[in-house]
């Protein structure tokens, strides 16, 4: 049995959040650079500006986007680990609170009805997955809401099948239009139930841009969806062009014989994501 003090989790969350807010992932930067080479006019201008923005963020030590997001934290925890110290959620929140203060990040979390800001960007959205062994790994995805607002859940019927899945994905991106800061990264959950399907879609966003599902039938769906999305012509920032999405990532899970849930979680072109193993 391994004992881990939750202070270490708090400190890891702090490091990850501080870094994530100020950097794009390597794969995101690569995908944006490639897209800028394909585009012309206002679309190219938008992508060049996004890449220039990343350089300025690094040089000036500023958050890449002012929407430093809602902190989504995935913790994979070996079941042979004993957590000591402050409660887990409090430890994660403490890391977020310190990072958003020290990084001069925007505090974007508020009560849904009164709209009163919590003042420190907490609570973080914490998802814990138990595995065997003594391993502990953390992934942090600061999620902006321009794109989160455009996400959708569809409860399809089994008869709608693969075509229904493709239509759901493409319609979510079409209806979102220029609002989610395209080119988007499209996270899709297929299967599970109402709640787990949405979580699958969010987990799909953790996969590196430009990679395909190891399941060949799912990879085919990803390629078909991406081709149809880029044929929409919405383009970077809605200025038309070839790049409406940087990629489509689909995660699946077994579902009920009566259903076919499909969740589409959109991610803007500012992909910020950090991982740490403790």
């Amino acid at each position: 049995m391994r004992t881990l003090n939750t202070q270490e989790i708090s400190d890891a969350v702090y490091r990850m959040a501080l870094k994530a807010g100020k950097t794009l992932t390597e794969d995101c930067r690569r995908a944006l650079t490639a897209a800028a080479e394909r585009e012309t006019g206002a679309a190219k201008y938008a992508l060049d500006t996004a890449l220039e923005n990343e350089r300025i963020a690094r040089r000036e030590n500023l958050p890449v986007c002012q929407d430093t997001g809602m902190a989504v934290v995935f913790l994979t925890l070996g079941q042979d680990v004993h957590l000591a110290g402050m409660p887990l959620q409090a430890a994660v929140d403490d890391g977020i609170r310190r990072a958003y203060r020290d990084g001069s990040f925007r505090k974007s979390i508020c009560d849904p009805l009164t709209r009163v800001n919590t003042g420190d960007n907490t609570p973080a959205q914490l998802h814990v997955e138990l595995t065997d062994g003594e391993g502990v790994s953390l992934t942090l995805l600061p999620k902006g809401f321009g794109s989160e607002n455009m996400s959708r859940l569809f409860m399809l019927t089994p008869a709608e099948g693969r075509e229904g899945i493709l239509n759901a994905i493409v319609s979510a991106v079409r209806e979102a239009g220029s609002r989610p800061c395209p080119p988007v990264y499209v996270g899709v959950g297929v299967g599970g139930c109402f709640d787990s399907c949405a979580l699958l879609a969010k987990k799909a966003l953790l996969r590196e841009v430009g990679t395909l599902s190891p399941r060949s039938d799912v990879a085919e769906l990803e390629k078909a969806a991406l081709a149809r999305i880029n044929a929409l012509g919405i383009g970077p920032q809605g200025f038309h062009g070839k790049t409406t999405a940087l990629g489509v990532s689909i995660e699946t899970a077994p579902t009920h014989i009566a259903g076919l849930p499909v969740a589409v979680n959109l991610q803007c072109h500012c992909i910020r994501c950090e991982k740490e193993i403790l």
Partner: protein
Amino acid sequence: MKKLTLPLTPAQLHALRAGECVALSGTVYTARDCAHRRFMQLLEEKKPLPFDPKGAVLYYAGPCPAPEGKACGSCGPTTSARMNSFAPKMLRLGLSAIIGKGEMSAETQNALRECGAVYFAAIGGAGALYGNAVKNMQLVAFPDLLSEAVYRLEVVDFPLVVAYDTLGNSVY
């Protein structure tokens, strides 16, 4: 790229065409959802707004706090569509332009045309670049709204795309 300095004359506004890239300098006011709700309440109570809307430019943005030594933190645009229910009313009070990101409604587009005002799209996600182009930032109203308060920004060479021009043309 065309350089523009605020305030813009009606002739300058009318000369802008959708799709054109410009670098804008001058004074703009930030406002998001919550600030707009308060503007509407003030108007309903026949009280003045915290800034003179005549000829003013609204920037749909909520900046990050300014780090030490900087005028402003990251400060890119937010999704303009959320302000569709307020924009026509604000435009009719005399705004010369709005800055945001993404499409706006037919009602907003009509109001822009009717008022001879322009909608500029800033590049979403480029918060560091825009924040760095803010040379001065002053709180104007609603400090309790934190980043959603109304701030007066002095900006230099904001890179923008004319999204809706005064003739009703659109970049989208």
